[in-house]
């Protein structure tokens, strides 16, 4: 069955379209909205976005495969992205990944933990260099990470 935006997202899609002289320019914002509603960008989601913007599905796929934030697979409830570029790397970025792997029970870049809660990715610079090491979990930044802080966060997420 063809997918549709729900009422809340439909409103945001319409407002977004009104901000650009060409529909196609709303590609990234509409994809972001779609990813919020559906969790990831499946073929059906691409079809919905293509229909919304009046473009061929191949145009949407072209964009989805170029930008690292659009994912074609589901992720954990807590999708953890750890910066591994220089400013974070020299301040323990790799150790942060290792520690998170142990705590969350899933390896970086290897899917979702058995309980469905966690996925971990190593990513390039997130523009938070003066608060390294850092990670982004879903939409939020967690900065100046220490073992104690990660313990506290992961325990909280495990209970939720």
């Amino acid at each position, binding site marked *: 069955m063809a997918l549709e935006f729900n009422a809340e997202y439909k409103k945001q899609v319409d407002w977004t379209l009104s*901000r*650009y*002289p*060409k529909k*196609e*320019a*709303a*590609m*990234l*914002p509409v*994809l*972001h909205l779609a990813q919020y509603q559906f969790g990831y960008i499946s073929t059906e989601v691409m079809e919905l976005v293509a229909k919304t*913007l009046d*473009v061929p599905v191949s145009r949407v796929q*072209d*964009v989805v495969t*170029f*930008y*690292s*934030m*659009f994912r074609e697979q589901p992720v954990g409830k807590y999708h953890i992205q750890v910066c*591994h*570029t*220089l*400013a974070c*790397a*020299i*301040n*323990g970025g790799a*150790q*942060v990944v290792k520690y998170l792997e142990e705590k969350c029970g899933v390896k970086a870049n290897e899917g979702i933990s058995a309980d469905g809660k966690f996925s971990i990715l190593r*990513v*390039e*610079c*997130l*523009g*938070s*260099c*003066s*608060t*390294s*090491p850092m990670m*982004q979990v879903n*939409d*939020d*930044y967690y900065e100046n990470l*220490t*073992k104690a802080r990660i313990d506290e966060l992961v325990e909280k997420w495990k209970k939720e």
Partner: protein
Amino acid sequence: MEKVLTKMVGIENSRNIDVYLKSGGYQALPKALKMTPDQLVGMMKDAGVRGRGGAGFPTGMKWSFLPKDNPNPRYLLCNADESEPGTCKDRVLMEEDPHQVIEGLAISSFAIQAHTCYIYIRGEYVNGAQVLNKAIQEAYDKGYLGKNILGSGFDLDITVHRGAGAYICGEETGLIESLEGKRGWPRIKPPFPAVYGVFGSPTIVNNVETLVTPVHIINRGIQWWKDNEPKLYCMSGHLNRPGVFEAKIGINLKDLIYGDDYSQGIAKGRKLKAVIPGGSSVPVLKADECDVAMDFDALAKAGSALGSAGCMVMDETTCMVNALWNLIKFYAHESCGQCTPCREGGHWMEMVLGRIETGRGRMEDLDLMLETANNIAGRTICPLGDALAWPIAGMPDKNKGGDLSGNSFVTKFRDEFEYHITNKKCKVTIPHEWN
């Protein structure tokens, strides 16, 4: 020193329009609307403002490139992609003082006579986008945006446009393509954006920090600007107090690293080893080269660049082979793939560095890297190719007929690279603990 760009940082509710107004906000905009656009462009030229996004291009001059006889609507694009590793300053402006940004965008839009402005913000800055959206709504409600701003007859719409995780969309023509809803593939220039930009229209792309400067020049005058030019510096790495600091442009790098008002020295009492002063694409400085003014000309003279003022400080626990490998991996990953030298060269450099780091390097790899870097720089559509080559082999050198000077990682730390190759292990033995 009096804070100007970061005046609102740390103030309660700094993002609220009433708090901004109470602290003297939105006083420059009405003055600007009483000037002529040409006067504003002239003001930017006279003040000598140079772009804060990386290239240091004179802003007034860029604005004057807009064709006078093109009937298409003009666009102002605020580059908030903040994607050059080491750079984290625009985030502070947007998240802590969004109205300063909006006031700057309104003045700049009027100066170039654009009625539509997009803030292209990196997709990961979700919080920044939310803060900006809220502030933009407040500004519309109070008549600082929208139709007939403050009774001047000037209309302006601002829209926040989130990117989606691609460094190359910070490059101005990659940004334009991305804003049009495509892959962020940089365009061949000319035509320049001022003539043929987004939607085929005349377009100006400037960095966030560049676009707030007219607020302060109008409020305080051109002479004040020349005497006090404020600049943001992003201090990261092995520091006691990393952070984004405001200082007069040209502050000595040593003061930024060691000064009480700034980063307060190297963490854990360790020794300084190297500094990348202007974002990851600029050549590295050795510890004994850090007595240098942090401005465009002095750093160029020192064989590096101010770039985006993303200053990464490395202590004696840092392996220079590993550090360069890390950076080159970044550029190889972020190459958009259009040009062979950048796409292939990046991956080859990454592999060569990887084999040196893991004990499989050959002595000839060092000259091979310098030569390859030289064959990448200047031979690509966009400057990502250069950004990949400069950390390896330095900036172009007039005395070498425009070839790269050689003065960066591979030459300055050649002993460490050779040690890796000969001994199949790292010369650095002091571990860096994380806790």
